[in-house]
C-alpha cells in the first residue's frame, strides 16, 4: 500500500509538470507513467491465486477461475489484454483489482474468440448472437474486496453460470453477472468502460460506494438482466452511461436486504431500446426505483424503451419521500412506447420539466399509474436528434437494434435535449476516499444538456 502511495505522489508531480505547458508552442509528449503494485507478472498465463501487475501493452491468458486473495492487489496497466481460453475463466477478487486502461490504450478482457470477432453491426437473432455466448465468467468480487477500479476497459462476451464453481454471492444455478461487487464498505469505480454482451446483469452491486460513469452498455442479457442493478447498501452515482438493448432495465435500484439504504443518483444517461427481451412481461425498460430505494434521476434521455422511469408503489414501494426526478426526455416511435412514458401501475409523478410536457398528453385529472392513450401529437415527437441514429428507427422491431455499431448518440444542434438539464444538484460522490490520481473517480457534474453526450463534450467519451 505504501508503494502505491509513493507511486501516486510521483504521478501527481508529473501530472502537474505536464499541465504547465500552455504558454509555449512545443508539443511535448511524455511517456505515461504506469501504476504498479507488487511484482510484475511476467508469465503470460494466469492461474490459481494471482497478485502483482500485468504490464502495459501485454497480452495475458487465463483458462480457469483465478483468485486475487484478500489483502492482495492485481493491477492491469494500460493496453493490457486478458483473454479467456475457456468459459470457466473468471476473476475472483477477494482483495483489490485495478484495471487502469486509458483513452489511448484501453484494456480488454474477453475470450480469445471474442477478441478476434468483429462486432457485427447487422441485426442478429440473440439466440445465435455471439454476444451472448459467455466466453469468460466476469469479475466476481467477494465481500472482502475493499476496492475495485475498472477504467477504460472493454469487458466483452462475459457471463455464464455458477456451474461447478461456487462463488460467494450466488446460489447454485445462478447466472453470472459481468461484475459483482458486494462490500457495502468498499469502493467500486467503473468508468469510461464498455460492457458488450452479457448473460445477465452487466453489473450487480449488493452494497458498495459506487461511481459508474461514462460507460457504454450494449447487448445486456439474453433475456433476464439489467445493465446496472444495485441493492441495499449501495450509495453513489450512475451518470453519462450510454445503454442500448438491455433485456430489462438500464438502471435499477432497490433496497432489498436492509443494509444502509440504497441511495443512487441516475443522471445524464441515454437509454435506447431497453426492456424488449425480458423473459416475462412488464419487467422494466429504462430505470427503476423499487422497494425502499431513494435518490435522484435527472437529465436522462429515454428513447424507444418499453417503459419510462418506474417508481414502485405498494407492495414493494420505493422511498418516494426521498426520490427526486425530472428533466427526462421521452421519445417513442409508436403509441405502445408513448403510452408507457409514465408506466401504468406505478407511481411515477409526471414532472413539468419532463419532455414532452405531461399536461400536453396526459388526461386531466391524472391518477398516478393510470392507463392513458397518448395523442398522436406526441408519437415520434421530441426527436432528440442524435448525430447518427435515425428516428423513427430503421429496423423491423425496436428490439432488433441492441448495439451501437456505427451509430452516434451525440446531439445535433437543435436537439430538444440541449439546454434542458437540471444542474441544481450535486452528485453523491461516495467514492471521495480514493484520492490517488490513478485510481480516483472522475466525477462528471450534471449538465445543462440531457443525456450521456452533452454538447460541451464533458460526458461520455466513447
Amino acid at each position, binding site marked *: 500500500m505504501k508503494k502505491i502511495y509513493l507511486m501516486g505522489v510521483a504521478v501527481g508531480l508529473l501530472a502537474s509538470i505536464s499541465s504547465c505547458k500552455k504558454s509555449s508552442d512545443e508539443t511535448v509528449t511524455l511517456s505515461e507513467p504506469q501504476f504498479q503494485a507488487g511484482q510484475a507478472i511476467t508469465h503470460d498465463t494466469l492461474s490459481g491465486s494471482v497478485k502483482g501487475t500485468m504490464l502495459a501493452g501485454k497480452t495475458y491468458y487465463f483458462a480457469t477461475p483465478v483468485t486475487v486473495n484478500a489483502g492482495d492487489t492485481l493491477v492491469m496497466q494500460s493496453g493490457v489484454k486478458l483473454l479467456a481460453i475457456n*468459459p*470457466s475463466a473468471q476473476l*475472483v477478487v477477494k482483495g483489490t483489482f485495478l484495471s487502469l486502461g486509458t483513452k489511448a490504450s484501453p484494456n480488454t478482457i474477453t475470450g480469445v474468440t471474442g477478441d478476434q470477432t468483429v462486432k457485427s453491426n447487422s441485426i442478429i437473432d*440473440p*439466440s445465435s448472437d455471439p454476444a451472448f*455466448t459467455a466466453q469468460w*465468467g466476469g469479475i466476481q468480487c467477494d*465481500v472482502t474486496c475493499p476496492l475495485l477500479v475498472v477504467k477504460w476497459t472493454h469487458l466483452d462476451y462475459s*457471463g*455464464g*453460470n*455458477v*456451474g*461447478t*464453481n*461456487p462463488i*460467494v454471492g450466488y446460489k*447454485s*444455478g*445462478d*447466472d453470472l453477472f459481468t461484475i459483482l461487487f458486494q*462490500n457495502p*464498505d468498499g469502493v467500486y469505480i467503473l468508468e469510461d468502460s464498455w460492457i458488450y454482451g452479457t448473460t445477465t446483469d452487466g453489473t450487480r452491486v449488493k*452494497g458498495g460506494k459506487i461511481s459508474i460513469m461514462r460507460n457504454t452498455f450494449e447487448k445486456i442479457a*439474453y*433475456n*433476464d438482466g439489467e445493465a446496472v442493478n444495485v441493492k441495499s*447498501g449501495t450509495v453513489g452515482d450512475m451518470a453519462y452511461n450510454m445503454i442500448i438493448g438491455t433485456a430489462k432495465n438500464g438502471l435499477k435500484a432497490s*433496497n*432489498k*436486504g*436492509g*443494509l*444502509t*439504504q440504497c441511495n443512487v443518483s441516475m443522471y445524464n444517461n441515454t437509454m435506447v431500446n431497453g426492456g*424488449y*427481451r425480458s*423473459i*416475462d*412481461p*412488464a*419487467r422494466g425498460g429504462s430505470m427503476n426505483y423499487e422497494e425502499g430505494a431513494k435518490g435522484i434521476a435527472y437529465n436522462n434521455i429515454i428513447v424507444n424503451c418499453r417503459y419510462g422511469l418506474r417508481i*414502485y408503489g*405498494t*407492495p*414493494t*414501494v420505493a*422511498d418516494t419521500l*426521498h426520490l427526486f426526478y425530472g428533466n427526462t426526455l421521452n421519445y417513442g416511435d409508436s403509441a405502445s412506447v408513448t403510452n408507457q412514458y409514465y*408506466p*401504468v*401501475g*406505478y407511481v411515477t409523478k409526471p414532472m413539468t420539466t419532463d419532455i414532452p410536457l405531461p399536461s400536453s398528453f396526459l*388526461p386531466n385529472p391524472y391518477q398516478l399509474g*393510470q*392507463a392513458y*392513450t397518448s395523442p398522436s401529437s406526441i408519437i415520434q415527437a421530441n426527436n432528440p436528434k442524435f448525430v447518427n441514429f435515425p428516428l423513427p428507427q430503421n429496423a423491423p*422491431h425496436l*428490439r*432488433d437494434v441492441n448495439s451501437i455499431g456505427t451509430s452516434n448518440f451525440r446531439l445535433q444542434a437543435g436537439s430538444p435535449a440541449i439546454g434542458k438539464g437540471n444542474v441544481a444538484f450535486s452528485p453523491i460522490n461516495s467514492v471521495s476516499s480514493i484520492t490517488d490520481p490513478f485510481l480516483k473517480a472522475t466525477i462528471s457534474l450534471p449538465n445543462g444538456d440531457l443525456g450521456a453526450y452533452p454538447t460541451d463534450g464533458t460526458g461520455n467519451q466513447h
Partner: protein
Amino acid sequence: MPTCGMRSIIKFIILFVLFFIVQTISAATIQGHIKDVETQEALIGAIIREKNQSHIGAATDFDGGFIIKNIPTGEYTFIVGHLGYLHQSKSIHITNDMNHYTLNFYMVHDTLTAEVVITGSHSYGAESDTLARKTEQNADNVINVVSANTIQILPDITVANVLQRVSGVSIERSSNGDGRYAIVRGMDPRYNYTLVNGIKIPSPDNKNRYVPLDLFPADLLERLEVIKALTPSMEGDAIGGVVNMVMKSAPYTPIFNVNLATGYSQMFFDRSYSKFDPNSIQKTSLGEIHGQDYQASTYDFNYNNFTYHNIKAPINGIAGITLAKRFFKNKFGVVLAGSYQNTYRATNSVFFNPNTQPLPGNVPTFDDIYLRQYSTQLTRGGVHSKLDYQINKNHTISLYNVYLQMNELQTRHTIDTALSISRTGTGTGNVYLLDRSRFQKQTIYNTTLQGNHTLAGTVKINWSAVYSLAKSNLPDWSETSLTKNVSKDANGNQVITPETLGYLPRRWQHNSDEDKSGYLNLSWSPASLDLALKKLAVSKVELSAGGMYRHKTRDNYYTEYKLTPKSNGGIIPPFDGAFTPDKYLFISQAASQGSPVNPNTYVCSENILAYYGQIKFLLFSKLQVLSGVRIENTLQKFETVMPSSFAGKSGSISYTDMLPSLHLKYMINSKQNLRFSYFKSISRPSYFEIIPYNIQGEYFTEAGNPYLKHTQAKNFDLRYEFFPKALDQILVGVFYKNILNPIEIAYVKSGTSGSLLQPQNFGTATNYGFEFVFTKFFGKIGFTSNYTYTNSSITTDKAYYYRDDNNQLTTSTVRQTRPLQGQSKHIANISLLYKNQTKGLEILLAYVYTGRRIVQLSPYKDLDYWQKGMSQLDFSFEKTIKKKFTFYAKITNILNSPLLVEIMQPNPYRSGSNVLYGQTRDDRILVQKEYYGQNYLLGIRYKF
C-alpha cells in the same frame, strides 16, 4: 362447508345414542364378570362360551362384565378362555323359575404360557390396551403408550397421525395434509428422536436428524410409546421426548391376519386428481451418468413429466398381512408382517406470499398470491420380520429386519398473481402458471441382531448389533412456468399478452444415512446385596452398566440445471401448448453442466460413543429409585465439494456430555403412583447446520454455523398416576425444562456489510407445562381424553426495518421473546368409544384440537406465521362377523377443517387499492388457507 360438518357431527351423535339405547331385553339371562384372581382386575375381551353350543357366549366389556341373553332352560357348562390364563369352566342349571343368573370367574395365570411369551413378562395380549396401561404404570420413567388394539380402531393409518392422539404430542403436517413430524410437549421435531424396538433409526431427510413418521404404516405396530423422561440406558439426545415403535412380535398362539381396504378422498369428487407418469422421471442426473463435466443438451431431458392426466376419484387401496408362529416347542418364533398403502390426497391452498422485507415499521407487505392445487399419491410399503430363538430359559437371540418405503408422487398446479408488477387492480398484472412434478422415494432399512442372556440367575446381558440405512431420492424435481400479463387500456378494455415460457429448473437430489452400531447392556441384581441392605429398607437392587457405539456416514448430492426459454428474434414466442426441448436452451456452457458443486452436496460422519452406569432399588417397598449417569462422546466430521479456496471445505467438531438422571416412583398403592424425574439431555445440531455453507437469497444469505453449540437441557417431571380399573386412567403431570443454547435460525447483522440468516444459539429457553389424561369406561362406552398446556419462551434476534432520525431506511437488530416454534399453548384430545364385545361392534369418534402455534419464523420482529387453532374430527367403525371377519370404516377430517396461517398484526388489507381477498379480521392478516377434504376408508380384516 361448516354447516355440512355440523350436520355430520349431529348425525354421529345420534348414531351413538341409538347404540346406547338399543339393548334388547329377554327372559333368561346370565350376567357376571371375569377377573384376575390375584389382582381382582377386570379381564377385558375374555371369551365365555358354552362347552357344546359355541353360539351361546359373549365377551367381556371394559368392566370385565358380560351378559348372555335368551338362554333356553337346561344344563350348561360355560368355559372361559383368556390369553395367558388357564381355562376355567362352570356349570349352571337354567330353569323356568328364574330368568336372571349370575356367574363370576376368577382366572388363574397360566405360568407356562407366561414364560414363553417372548414379548415381555406379562400375561396380557401384547397388543392390548390393558398391557399399554400396565406398561405405563410399571415403567421406570414417564411414558405414554398406545396399544395395537387402539391403533386398529383409530381412524389413522400412519404412525404420525396416531401420535396426535397421545397426550402432549401434536403433529406437523406435510403439504398433503398428513401428519409428518411429532412435536412433543411443544418441542420441535429436532428435539426428539425415533426408535424402532428401542433402536434409534436414521432419517432419510436431507438435512435433519428427525424421521418423517408418515413413513410408518400404523398396522405394523404392536404398540407405540412416547417416552418423556430419559433413563441412563437411553440415548441422551431428546429434550421433548422419544417415539418408540414396538413392532409386532410372535406370541405363542399362531397369527394369520389379513387386512384389505379401499376408499376415496372427497376432494377428488369435487376436482380431478392430476397425475403424471412416474416413469417419465429420470432417476439419475446427467452429471452422475456421464460425469460432472458433461455438457447437457435440452434434448437430454424428458418432458413427459409435464403431461398431466385428470383422474376422477381415484381409489385408495390398503392391504396388510401378519403371519406369526412358534416352532420347536415354542422355542423358535417367526413373525412376518407386510403393509401396503396406496392413497391419493388432495390439497387446495391459497397463499399470500409476504414480501421478505416488510414496509418500514415492519408492516407486512405481499408480493404474490398463489392459488395451489396439490394432487399427491402416497405409496407406502413396509415389511418386517422377527425371528427369535430361545436356546433355553436363560438365552435368547433374535434377528429383526424392517424395510419401509414411501413413494410420493405429487403434482402441484399454481396460479401465481404478482402484486407488484404493473398491477392496476384486481385481475391485472403478471400472472404465472406453474406446474410442478415431483417424485420422492424414501426408504429406511434396519436389521438388528440381539441377544439376551441370564448368567448365574442374577446377571443379565443384552447386546445388539445394528445396521441401518435411510435413503431419499428426489430426482428430476421440476416446475414449468408460463407467464402472461393482464392489463387494462385507457378505455378499460382488457389486454392479455400471449402466454410465454419461463425458466425450467430441474433438480436432482439424493442422500443416504448409514448407521452401524453396537449396544451392550449388563445388569446385576444379586440377592446377597438385597440381604445386606435389608436393614436400610432397601430391596430389589439392580446395578446396570452399558454402552453403545455408532458410526454414521451421510452422503448428500444435489445438482440443478436451469433451462432458459429460447427466444426467437429477441422475444419468446407464444406458447403452443407443448413443453419440448427445442423451446429451451442452456444460456452458457457452465449452465449446461448443472451445478453439482454446491453446499448441498456434502459428506459427513458422526461417531457416538456412549456409556452409562445405573442403580435401581426399592426403598421401604414403596419408593423405586433409579439413578445414574450417561456419558456421550460426539465426533462429527464433514467434507463438502467446495473448492479448497472455500473456508470450511471440511471440518470436525467434538464434544462430551455427562448426563445424570434421577427417577423416583412412589407406589402409593397397587393403583397409584407418584413420580418424579430429573434428567439432563442434549440435542445435536442438524448435519447441515454446522457446515459453513452460504446460500445466496434475494434478501439474505443463508449461512451455516460451524460454531453452533449443541443444546443442553435440564428436564423435570412430576406425575401422579391412578389406574382405578384395567383400562381407566388418570394421569396428572407437570414438567419444566431449562434449555441452554437452543438453536434457532435468525437474522444476523454484522456492521453494515452483511445480513445473514443463520442457525444460532440463543441463551436459555424455558418450557413448562401441564398434562392431564383421563380415561374412563362405563360398560360399553369408553371416554378418553387428554389435555396439555405448554408455555415455552425463547428470546432471539430479529430484524426491525424502519426510518431512522436521519430519514434513512435502516434495519436494526432487536430482541423478541416468543414461544418455541411449533408449541401450542393448548392441545387436547377427546374420543368416545362404543364397544360391544358380544355384537363385535366398535364405534369411535375422535376429536383433536391443536392450539395456535408458530409454524414459520420470520427474520423480522412481529412477523412470524402463526397457525390458527385447529380442530379435527375423525370417525371409525368396526363390526366383527363370524368372529373371523371384521368390517371397518374410517372417515377422517369430517369437518374438512382448514389450516389457517396468520400474521398477528393489524390488517391494512381489508379495503383500499391493496385489498387482499379472504381477509376477515382487523387484528391479523391471513397468509395461508389450506383444505384437505375428507378421506373415506372401507375395509375388511380377517383373523385366522
